[in-house]
C-alpha cells in the first residue's frame, strides 16, 4: 500500500513542477453592465462573470451590476448562474448588459457534479437537479422528504410522520440485498456524515442527484447506490447587503384517517358471539353456550358501559338488551392525538465586496406532531464565507451548526407504549377518565377528573397504562447537536491549473433521555426509570484535488486528479437507573438503583486516489473517463483495495452543421456511459474476522459466538450502463430527457445460510448478483409564456425492474428471506407467503392453500396456518413512480402544485391485523370489517367465524396484502408578490405572502393504512404521514 501512495505522490509532484505559468501583467480595461432575468426583468445578484480562459472573475451585485478588468488577450465574457443558461458574449463594447434565461434543464445550466461543477451539456452521465425554488415552499424538516416526485429515478418513501424524521431514498432500484442501499450524501463538496435533518432546506441552493457510473464512479466504494450532492447558498458582491426574512406558521393533522372501528354495541354482540361459539366447540349445549356467554361477557371485557341497570347487556339471543345504551364513548384519539402546529422562521444575510462574499443564516423550526408529546424543535446557523486572498489564492469556510430537540414517544413497533397503536387498539368503551358505574366521572378531592389507567382492562386493551396521563410526565427526548464545516484553500497555479485542498468535519452529538415517572403508569412499581445515552460521531474528510482545464482551439480538456482520506469515529455510552428519590427529578443521579452502564466505539477509514478526464471537440463530441482506488478498513488487508471506473460520451447532434437549417429542434443530445462503482457499507465495520460478542455474566467476563471468519469478503460492485437522449423543441418550451439504465450488482453480500442447528444463521459472502433495469423520463414544458402569465408543467416518472440473477445456493435454488423469496428472475421484494383461500363456507374456518410435492400451489386447502404452502404473491416494488409539477405565475400571483404518485406494488398491512382478531384477544378494538364474519347465515365471506381460540387467521398471508398504488398532492403553494411600486415607498425591497399545504390530499385504496410505507412493503405501526397547512411571508430588506 505505501508503495501505491508514494508512487502517486511522486507523480503528482512531478506534474506540479512541470506546470509553466504565465506572467500576470498586461494592459487592462474595464467592462461593466447589468445582468437581468429575461422573464421577470429583475436584476440578478451573484451571477458569475468570468473572462474566458483567464483567472479573472467577479460576480454581480444585488442590483445586478458588475464591473471587471480585462486585458488585451481577453476574447469573451462568460456569465453563469446556477439554474440559468450560461451565456458567452464577445467583448464588443465596454458596457455589456445581459439578460439571462432561467430555464428548467437547458444544456448550459450549471450543475454541481462530483468534485466540481459542470455545464449540463458537458455531462455524459445522468444527473438530475432540484433547485432552491422547488425546495423553498416545502414544509419539511428533513430535506430527504422533499425529493419525492421531483426527480425521475429517485424513489422516496417517508414511512413516519414523526416530526424530524426523514425518508428512505432509493436511486434507480435496489442495489443491494443485505448491505446498505442508501445513497451517499455529499454536502458542499465532501461526503456528509452529519444529520440530514440538520440542514435547513432554506439554506440549500441546489441538489444534484447522480444516478449513473459516469457521474458517480468518482465516489468509488461509496457511490454504488447513487449520490445526492447538496450545495448550500453563498453570498454575492453587493453595495448593500441583502437581508431576507421568511416566516411560516401552520397547523398539522393526519394525512389519512385511521381504520374504522365497530361501535360499542356491535363490539359487545360480536364478542358474545365469539364466547358462545367457543362454548359450543367445548361441547356445551346451545342453551348452556349462550347462557355462559351472556354471563362471562362482562368478566372477560371487565367493564359494563351500559351501567348497573343492565347487568347482562347481551341477552341469550345475542342481542343488546332492550333500552341499553353505552353511557360513554371515549375515543382515545381525542386525548392522544391533536391538531399540531408548525412554526418556521429564517433570517439570512448575504453580500460581499470585491474580494469576499458571505452568506449567513439563522433558522428556527418548531413542529408539534399530531401525537401528544411528539415534536421537533431546531435552531440552526450557517455561515458560508469565500475570500479571494490573492489573484491566485482563494479560501473559504462553510460552517453550519444546529441544535435540535426531538420529542419522540414510542411511535413504531408493537410495544404497548406505542402512542399510535395505543389509540387504535383500545376501544372507546374503556374510558380515559375514571367513571362511576352510572357513567358519571369520578373526581378527586379537588373535583378534578381522574385518569383511568385501566388496571381492569384485559391484556388486549393495554391494561395499567394511560399514555394521555403518563406521557406528559415522562420524557422521550433526543437532543442533537450537529456541526459541519467545510474549509478549502484553492491555489490557481496557472489559468488552466488549480489545486484545491478541502478539509471537512461533521460532528454529531446525540443525547437520548428517556424517563418514566414514578407516580402513574407502568413504572410505579419500579419507582420511575431513566435511561440516558450519548452517541458522538465524527466524520472527517481531507481531499486534495488538482484540476487542469484548458481550451486548445476546438479541443477542450479537463483533467482532475487527487486523493481523499476519510475517517469516521463513533462512540457511545448509555446507562439506566430506577427508583427515584422524589418525583420531579429526571436525571440518573436522582435514581437509586443502577441497572446498567455500557459503551462502545467503532472506527471506519477509507483511503482513496482518484482521477477524471473530460474532453470535447467543438463542444459537440464529449468523452469522459474516471478512475478511483479505495482502501477500506472494513475488510481484511488482502481484500481491502478495490478499483472503480467509468467511461462516458455524448454527442450534441443539434450542433452539427446539417442541423443548423431547421428551427424546430433546439437541442438534441445523445449520451451513454458505463462503469463500476462499489458498496462497502455491509452493515458492519468489521467484516473479516471470526468474532465472539462480549456477553459478561454475573460479574464475570463472558463471550459468545457471533460471526464466522470471512477473510475473503470484499465490496459489492455495481456495473452501470446508461443511455440517454435529450431533446428540446419550440424555443426550449418543450424539453424531454429520456434515459434507459441497466444496473448490474455483483459480488452481493449474502448471508450464506446455514441450518439454525449449526448455531448460526449463516456467514457473510460475496455471492450473488442482481440487476435493475428501467427508464427515467423527465418532461418539462412551458405551455404558456406571455409577459403576464407563465405556466410550467413538468412531468417525471420512472420504472425499474429488479431481478436477481445469481444466488449463493447450490444450483441457484431459491433462498428464503422471511416473508420474501429470493429467486432467479424474481425481485428481492417478492412476497413469499401463504396464499389465502378464503373462509370455509361450511364451518367458518380460515383456509390457506397447501403446496404440492414440488412446492407449487395445489387445490387442497388447510385451516392450519403452519401447514400452508408459501407462494409468490406479487412484489412490494411499484411499477411506476413519479410526479407532476404545475406552476403558474400571473402578474404578481404565483401558484404551484406537486403531485407524486406510485403505481403498483403490494403492502402487507400488519397494523390492520391487530384489530382483525377473531375474538381471541378480548378487549382489543375491532375493525368494521369484522362485521362481515362467517355465520351460518353469512357463509360467503372472507372473515372467519368468531371464537376465543386463536384461529391464526391473521397470521401472514395474502389475505392482508393490499395495493400500494397511491397519488399524493405533496405540496401546493399560492403566493402574492407585492409590487415594487408600493414597497419602494416604505423601503422594502421585496415582499411575498403565501399559503402552503403539504400532503393535502391522498388518493388510495385501502382505507386506514397510510399508503406511504416502507420500501419492503411491510407496515410497522408507524406514526402516520401528516398534513401541514401554513401561511407565511418572505420579506427582503
Amino acid at each position, binding site marked *: *500500500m505505501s508503495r501505491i*501512495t508514494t508512487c502517486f*505522490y511522486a507523480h503528482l*509532484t512531478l506534474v506540479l513542477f512541470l506546470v509553466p505559468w504565465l506572467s500576470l501583467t498586461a494592459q487592462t480595461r474595464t467592462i461593466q453592465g447589468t445582468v437581468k432575468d429575461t422573464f421577470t426583468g429583475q436584476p440578478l445578484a451573484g451571477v458569475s462573470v468570468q473572462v474566458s480562459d483567464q483567472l479573472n472573475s467577479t460576480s454581480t451585485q444585488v442590483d445586478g451590476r458588475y464591473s471587471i478588468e480585462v486585458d488585451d488577450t481577453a476574447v469573451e465574457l462568460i456569465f453563469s448562474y446556477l439554474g440559468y443558461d450560461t451565456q458567452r458574449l464577445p467583448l464588443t463594447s465596454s458596457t455589456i448588459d445581459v439578460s439571462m434565461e432561467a430555464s428548467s434543464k437547458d444544456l448550459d445550466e450549471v450543475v454541481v457534479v462530483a468534485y466540481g461543477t459542470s455545464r449540463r451539456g458537458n455531462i455524459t452521465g445522468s444527473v438530475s437537479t432540484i433547485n432552491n425554488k422547488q425546495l423553498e415552499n416545502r414544509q419539511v424538516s428533513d430535506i430527504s422528504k422533499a425529493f419525492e416526485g421531483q426527480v425521475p429515478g429517485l424513489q422516496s418513501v417517508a414511512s413516519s410522520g414523526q416530526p424530524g424524521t426523514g425518508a428512505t431514498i432509493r436511486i434507480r432500484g435496489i442495489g443491494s440485498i443485505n448491505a446498505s442501499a442508501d445513497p451517499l450524501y455529499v454536502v458542499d463538496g465532501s461526503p456528509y456524515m452529519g444529520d440530514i435533518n440538520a440542514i435547513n432546506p432554506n439554506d440549500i441552493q441546489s441538489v444534484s442527484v447522480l444516478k449513473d457510473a459516469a457521474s458517480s464512479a468518482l465516489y468509488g466504494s461509496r457511490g454504488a447506490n447513487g449520490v445526492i450532492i447538496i450545495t448550500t447558498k453563498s453570498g454575492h458582491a453587493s453595495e448593500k447587503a441583502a437581508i431576507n426574512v421568511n416566516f411560516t406558521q401552520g397547523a398539522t393533522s393526519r394525512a389519512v384517517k385511521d381504520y374504522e372501528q365497530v361501535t360499542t354495541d356491535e363490539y359487545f354482540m360480536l364478542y358474545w358471539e365469539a364466547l358462545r361459539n*367457543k362454548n359450543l*366447540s367445548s361441547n*356445551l349445549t346451545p342453551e*348452556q353456550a349462550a*347462557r*355462559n356467554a351472556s354471563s362471562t361477557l362482562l*368478566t*372477560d371485557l*371487565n367493564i359494563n358501559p351500559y351501567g348497573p341497570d343492565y347487568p347482562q347487556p347481551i341477552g341469550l339471543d345475542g342481542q343488546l338488551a332492550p333500552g341499553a345504551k353505552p353511557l360513554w364513548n371515549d375515543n382515545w384519539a381525542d386525548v392522544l392525538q391533536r391538531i399540531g402546529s408548525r412554526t418556521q422562521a429564517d433570517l439570512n444575510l448575504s453580500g460581499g465586496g470585491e474580494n469576499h462574499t458571505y452568506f449567513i443564516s439563522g433558522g428556527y423550526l418548531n413542529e408539534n406532531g399530531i401525537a401528544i408529546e411528539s415534536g421537533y424543535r431546531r435552531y440552526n446557523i450557517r455561515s458560508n464565507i469565500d475570500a479571494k486572498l*490573492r489573484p491566485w489564492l482563494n479560501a473559504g469556510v462553510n460552517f453550519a451548526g444546529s441544535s435540535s430537540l426531538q420529542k419522540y414517544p414510542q411511535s413504531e413497533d408493537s410495544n404497548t407504549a406505542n402512542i399510535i397503536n395505543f389509540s387504535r387498539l383500545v376501544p372507546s368503551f374503556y374510558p380515559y377518565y375514571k367513571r362511576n358505574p352510572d357513567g358519571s366521572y369520578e373526581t378527586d378531592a379537588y373535583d378534578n377528573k381522574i385518569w383511568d389507567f385501566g388496571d381492569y*382492562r384485559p*391484556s388486549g386493551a393495554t391494561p*395499567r397504562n394511560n399514555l394521555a396521563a403518563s406521557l406528559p410526565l415522562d420524557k422521550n427526548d433526543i437532543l442533537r447537536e450537529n456541526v459541519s464545516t467545510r474549509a478549502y484553500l484553492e491555489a490557481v497555479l496557472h489559468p488552466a491549473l488549480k489545486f484545491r*485542498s478541502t478539509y471537512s468535519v461533521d460532528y454529531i452529538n446525540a443525547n437520548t433521555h428517556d424517563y418514566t415517572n414514578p407516580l402513574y403508569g407502568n413504572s410505579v412499581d419500579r419507582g420511575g426509570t431513566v435511561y440516558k445515552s450519548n452517541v458522538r460521531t465524527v466524520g472527517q474528510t*481531507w481531499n*486534495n484535488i488538482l484540476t487542469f482545464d484548458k481550451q486548445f482551439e476546438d479541443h477542450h480538456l479537463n483533467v482532475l486528479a487527487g*486523493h481523499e482520506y476519510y*475517517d469516521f469515529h463513533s462512540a457511545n455510552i448509555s446507562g439506566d437507573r430506577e427508583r427515584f428519590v422524589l418525583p420531579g427529578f429526571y436525571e440518573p443521579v436522582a435514581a437509586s438503583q443502577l*441497572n446498567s452502564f455500557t459503551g*462502545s*466505539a*467503532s*472506527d471506519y*477509514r477509507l483511503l482513496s486516489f482518484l482521477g477524471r478526464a473530460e474532453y470535447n471537440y467543438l463542444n459537440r463530441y464529449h468523452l469522459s473517463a474516471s478512475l478511483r482506488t479505495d*482502501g477500506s*478498513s472494513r475488510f481484511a*488487508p488482502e481484500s*481491502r483495495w478495490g478499483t472503480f471506473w467509468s467511461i462516458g460520451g455524448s454527442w450534441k447532434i443539434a450542433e452539427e452543421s446539417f442541423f443548423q437549417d431547421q428551427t424546430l429542434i433546439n437541442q438534441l443530445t445523445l449520451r451513454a456511459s458505463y462503469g463500476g462503482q462499489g458498496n462497502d457499507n455491509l452493515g458492519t*465495520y468489521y467484516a473479516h*474476522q471470526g*468474532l465472539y460478542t*462480549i456477553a459478561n*455474566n*454475573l460479574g464475570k*467476563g*463472558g*463471550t*459468545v*459466538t457471533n460471526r464466522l471468519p*470471512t477473510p475473503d469478503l470484499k465490496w459489492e460492485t455495481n456495473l452501470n450502463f446508461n443511455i440517454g437522449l435529450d431533446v428540446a423543441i419550440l424555443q426550449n418550451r418543450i424539453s424531454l430527457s429520456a434515459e434507459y439504465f441497466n444496473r448490474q450488482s455483483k459480488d452481493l453480500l449474502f448471508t450464506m445460510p*446455514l*441450518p*439454525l*442447528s*449449526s*448455531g*448460526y444463521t449463516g456467514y457473510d459472502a460475496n455471492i450473488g448478483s442482481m440487476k435493475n433495469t428501467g427508464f427515467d423520463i423527465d418532461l418539462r414544458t412551458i405551455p404558456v409564456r406571455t409577459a403576464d402569465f407563465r405556466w410550467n408543467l413538468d412531468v417525471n416518472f420512472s420504472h425499474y425492474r429488479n431481478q436477481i440473477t445469481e444466488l449463493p445456493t447450490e444450483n441457484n435454488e431459491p433462498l*428464503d428471506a422471511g416473508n420474501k423469496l429470493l429467486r432467479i428472475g424474481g425481485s428481492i421484494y417478492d412476497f413469499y407467503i401463504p396464499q389465502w383461500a378464503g373462509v370455509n363456507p361450511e364451518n367458518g374456518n380460515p383456509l390457506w392453500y397447501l403446496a404440492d410435492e414440488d412446492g407449487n400451489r395445489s387445490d387442497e386447502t388447510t385451516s*392450519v*396456518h*403452519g401447514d400452508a404452502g408459501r407462494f409468490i404473491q406479487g412484489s412490494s416494488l411499484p411499477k411506476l413512480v413519479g410526479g407532476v409539477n404545475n406552476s403558474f405565475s400571473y402578474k404578481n400571483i404565483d401558484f404551484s402544485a406537486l403531485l407524486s404518485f406510485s403505481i403498483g406494488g403490494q403492502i402487507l398491512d400488519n397494523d390492520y391485523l391487530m384489530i382483525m382478531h377473531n375474538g381471541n384477544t*378480548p378487549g382489543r378494538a375491532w375493525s368494521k370489517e369484522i362485521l362481515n364474519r362467517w355465520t351460518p347465515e353469512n357463509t360467503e365471506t372472507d372473515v372467519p367465524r368468531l371464537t*376465543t*381460540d*386463536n384461529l391464526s387467521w391473521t*397470521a401472514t398471508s395474502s389475505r392482508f396484502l393490499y395495493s400500494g398504488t397511491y397519488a399524493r398532492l405533496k405540496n401546493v403553494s399560492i403566493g402574492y408578490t407585492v409590487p415594487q411600486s408600493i414597497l419602494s415607498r416604505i423601503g422594502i425591497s421585496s415582499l411575498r405572502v403565501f399559503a402552503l399545504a403539504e400532503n393535502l390530499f391522498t388518493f388510495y385504496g385501502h382505507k386506514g393504512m397510510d399508503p406511504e410505507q416502507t420500501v419492503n412493503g411491510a407496515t410497522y405501526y408507524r406514526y402516520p404521514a401528516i398534513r401541514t397547512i401554513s401561511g407565511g411571508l418572505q420579506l427582503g430588506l
Partner: protein
Amino acid sequence: MKLTHVYIAIWTTLSLSSCSDILDTAPTDAVVDTEIYKSTENIETVIEGTWRYLNDTYFTYANPGYTAFMRTSDAMGNDVAVTTKYGYRDPYTFNEMINSSAYRVTSLWTLLYKVIDNANNVIHKVDAAEGSDTDKELLKGQAKALRAFCYFNLASFYQFSYQKDKNALTVPIYTEPTTRETKGQPKASLEDIYTLILNDLHDASTLLKDYEREDKYKIDKHVVQGLLARAYLNMGLWTEAAEAAENAKEGYDLMAAGDYEQGFNDVGNVEWIWGHVQTSEQNTASYTFHYLDVSSSGSYYFSFMADPYFKDLFDQRDIRYQLFEWDGEPGREGFLRYKKFKFKSNLIGDIVYMRSAEMWLIAAEGYARAGQTAKATEALNTLRTARNAPLYSAASGELLEEILIERRKELWGEGFALSDIIRTQAPVVRKAFLNSDGTPIQVEITTPDGEVKKVNGQGHRVVNFPDGKPFTANSRYYIFAIPNEEIRRNPSLNNND
C-alpha cells in the same frame, strides 16, 4: 508568499498523509475467535457468555431465554390455567408449538443449538490452549454438561417418549464446532441422542468430581447427577435414576416449611441444587415472573393461574395449600392464584432449575417402578413430611399414582408439566370449571375494597385440541415442531423422514 512556496507546502502535506496501517481497525464489543482459544482463562469467558446467552437472551418478551422452555411446558399441561393475557396463551391452546412457523418454535430451537455450538468449540479447542490440566478438565466438564442439558431438552420435547420408541428420529446431532463448511445433519434417533447425553454426563461427572463451585449457576457434580437422574427417568432405567437422584441431592436438605412461601426467587434456598442468578443489571430471565407471579403489584400479566381442580389435590394442612387464593383484583376476579412464585422487591427473581425435592421425587418414582416399594414410600414421605402433608400409606391409593400427583403438586410452574406427560405417555387432563348443568361454579372473593362477593370461578378455558378432539396420549400436539427455517436450510432432515 510565492507560488513555489505553495508547491512546497502541497508536497509536504501530501507526503505526510501516507501510511497503510490506518486501515486496520478492531471492534470494541467483540473478541477475535483466535484470541479466545489461546488460554483457559479466555475460554472460561465462553462458558460464562454461553450461560448468559442461554438464560438472558430476549427473543421476545414472551421468550426470555431458557425460562421460555419451562413456561411453555407448564402452559401445555394440566394444572396451569393460562389466561388470555400476553405470553403463553397460544401454547396453552396447543396451537403454537405444532406450528413450524411460530416465532417461539424458532426461538427455542435457536437457543439450544447455539449453546451446543459454543460447547462444541470449548470441548474441541480447550486441550490446545495454554493453562493447567485442572482448568481444562473443569471447562470441558462444564461444556459437556451444558451440551448434555441442551440435547436432553431436545430429546424431551421434540419426540415422544424414549420408552415408546427409542428408534424414533428426533433432531440432528452436532458434536464438532461449526465452520463455514458445516453441513446440516440428519435427524438422529432418541437412542443416539441419549447415548450422547449419557456419555457427556459421565465424562462431566469424572471431570468435575473435585470441582467446588462458588455459585449455584455453575455446573458441579451434583448438577450432573441430577441431569443423569432426569435422563435415566426418561429412558426407563429406574434404579439408575433413583441412584443418581440420591447422589444429586446429597447435601441439599429440603427447605423449612416456612420458606415455601418465600417466592421461589432466591438461589440461596437450601433446596436449590442449580439455578440462574439475577441481578438488577442482568435480569432478562426475571421477566418470566411477569407470567408466574400472580400476586405482586409489579407483575404485568398474572397469566399462570392455577386450575381450581388442582387445589383439590392438596390437604388443607399442607403448607402449599396456603398459597391458594381466589383473586379479587379488578380484571382477575374469580381466577385462582397459586402464589408460589413472587418477584423480589426490585422486580427480579432467580430462576430455579433443580431442587432436591425433585430428586426425592425421582428417587421415589425410580424405586416404585423398580418394585422397591418401601424405599419409594420413604422418599415420598420424606418430602410430604417437609410439606406438612399427610403421609402415604398403602390405604391412600396406588403408590406410583401418588408419586406422580406429588410431582405435579411440588413442581408446579417449574417446567415439568408437558415433559412428564410425554414421558409417562399420559393424556393432558383438563376440565372446565362448571357445574354438572354447565353453569359456572361460583366462588367467593374479596375485592381490594374489602367487599366480599360471589363471582364465576375461572378455570381451564381450553379443554380439547384445536381440531375439537379430546386430549389423548402421545398426541402430535405435544411435540415441538422443528422450525421451518431449519427444515428449509437443512435438506438432510427430510432424507430420513
